[in-house]
């Protein structure tokens, strides 16, 4: 039973973070595409901004791993 709960907690940790990352990237991605259409010279900045929400899902993955293996 405990293993099931741990697995469920790990899934939640990574799943919720992935949903949040996806939502943030969809907003930043469409705004970034609009910005690039007007100012292509900002492509470096947009890529960095688009990558920032990735940290959320990476942290979620780390937390899930800690739940499962520590």
């Amino acid at each position, binding site marked *: 039973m405990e293993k099931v709960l741990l697995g469920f907690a790990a899934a939640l940790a990574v799943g919720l973070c992935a949903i949040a990352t996806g939502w943030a990237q969809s*907003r930043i991605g*469409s*705004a*970034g*595409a*609009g*910005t690039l*259409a*007007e*100012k292509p010279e900002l492509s470096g900045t947009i890529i960095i901004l688009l990558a920032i929400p990735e940290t959320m899902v990476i942290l979620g993955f780390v937390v899930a791993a800690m739940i499962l293996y520590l």
Partner: protein
Amino acid sequence: MGLLAEHGGSGVPLSYLLARIMGRRAYLVTEWQRLLATADPLASLPPSPYRQAPDGGADEGLWGSLQQELAWVHRQMGRSLQAIFEPFFLTLELRTLFMALRLRSRGEEGRTLGSLLRFSLLCAPVKRLLREGDDLPAIMAGVGLHAAFLPDGGRALPEIMRRQGMRGCEEHLVDACLEHAAANRLHPAVAAFVIRLIDMENMVALAKQVRWRMGEPGFVAGGSIGVALLREAARDREGRLARRLMGRVLGGEADPAAPELVPLLAARLALALRRQGREPDGVGLILDYLWRRLAETRNLSLLLHGADLERETLGRELL
């Protein structure tokens, strides 16, 4: 049936459109007084890919690029956003409609009418009517069929055209459009814009009445001041009530005889739009951009045609 063309589809994501608009907004002229201080204001304009330089002494290129920009914004919007902005685009396209009618009545059909209607947001049947319609009352009858905001289904339009001419017809359509918009449930930013636009129309009508006394002026219902109060102010020979009402709209004491009334009213509207532009849903930002683009084109046209005027006079008239 509406007067405006419908661009199908769900449009681009709002955040994409807002980012593009914010990018384009950076090209708008903001320092008009500094521009006016230069030897040749039109030659000192900051470069912009979205603004066509005036061609010789004509401003058709300026207004053409504005039309093109408005059409671009309209095409990017989805149906729901187009519906939100309908009163704004409709008010502008009514001006296009009457500009086209004036060209027809002067016999200037060919290229000028074509370029005016090229980027117009009027629906295809109305554009066809404007190009091929027999005479002005017949065109107005056709337009009336598409003007869904008219309470009588547009049946009175040909008669108004015969009795009061183009000017009467234009006033009837614009007033009906604004009254219809004000009576409907609108997005808060668009509703506030419509109310301020009606206030502007009413204040200008009231100022003319106080100054020249030209019979009973037609006020538009739906503004922040009721029509009954406006009529009372128009009847007041001393203009005391008119001054108070203008002060209410402009904030502070105002003189109905002041020549710069329209720029003052437009400045209040622009300030309110800029404030609404900070709301997170984006509607205020789009409205603010469209208005600023419109004001920029009007100012450039003024600089072009008012090159002989004193800089001080021009400075007062700029929006």
